[in-house]
């Protein structure tokens, strides 16, 4: 036999059907937004090495530097050993 409390719960339970059955859609990019923020947090808090994207970006910059140094007129002796440090270039400038 149900107690008065349980009877009230049954009644209220029925009232809440509408919320229980409701489908709440989330923004299509919600997961991506969360992951982007986590990626930023992870990078800034040093919780992991640079992400694959960051590594690829670094390689691209390095490749560009190397290609630039190989262009006629841009190359200087020892340029193929250049680590891209701007200070080195400045030291060679007249």
């Amino acid at each position, binding site marked *: 036999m149900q107690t008065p*409390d349980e009877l*009230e*719960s049954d*009644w*209220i*339970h*029925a*009232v*809440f059907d*509408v*919320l*229980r059955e*409701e489908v*709440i859609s*989330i*923004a299509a990019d*919600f*997961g991506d*937004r*969360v*992951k982007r*923020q*986590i*990626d930023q*947090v*992870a990078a800034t*808090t040093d*919780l*992991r*090495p640079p*992400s*694959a994207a960051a590594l690829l970006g670094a390689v691209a910059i390095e490749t560009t530097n190397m290609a630039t140094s190989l262009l006629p007129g841009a190359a200087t002796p020892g340029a193929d050993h250049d680590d891209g440090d701007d200070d080195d270039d400045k030291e060679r400038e007249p």
Partner: protein
Amino acid sequence: MTSEQDDAELVRLAAARGLPGQLAFEKLVDRHQVWLVRLLAHLLGSRSDAEDVAQDAFVRAFLAIEECRDGARFRGWLRVMARRLAFNHRRDSRTRTRYEEGSAVHGADHFEAPAEQLEGRDLLEQVLGELSYAYREIMVLRFVEEMPLKEIADTLEIGESAAKMRLQRARGEFQRLYERRGRRDADTGRA
């Protein structure tokens, strides 16, 4: 492999940090985002607020993943964290008044006239909005999430007897407000 075991493994990997840990945590995000946003939407009454708080909860969970001692219960752990953030979010936006503690008193007066036009979901939302946040919260956990009392107590970080008392009072207040609209019988078919 059960979902709990999957969560436990992902939490273990995430706690080990590094890129694999981050990727493991992102799988947890994929798995738990829908129910979390749904819960928060019901607590806060706004999907956009729910997404903001859910995002914050995931980031904080990621930063504190080592503190999740039982990875199989990641969902409960995340829910406690999200509930705290939702509480703070609502507290910080009190000027918006909809969920203020005192809104029940003022709201009841304001809703006298239009209440008769409200039905179903709108009426329910209106009544929930009039409840104090603590009451709304426990009503959502019990009657929307259908959580047992023990789990509610764990989520609210209070004792089981305190949760029972709060639920009893919330239910009484909900009933009073709902009946005030005179829609109870019409909506439920109860004689």
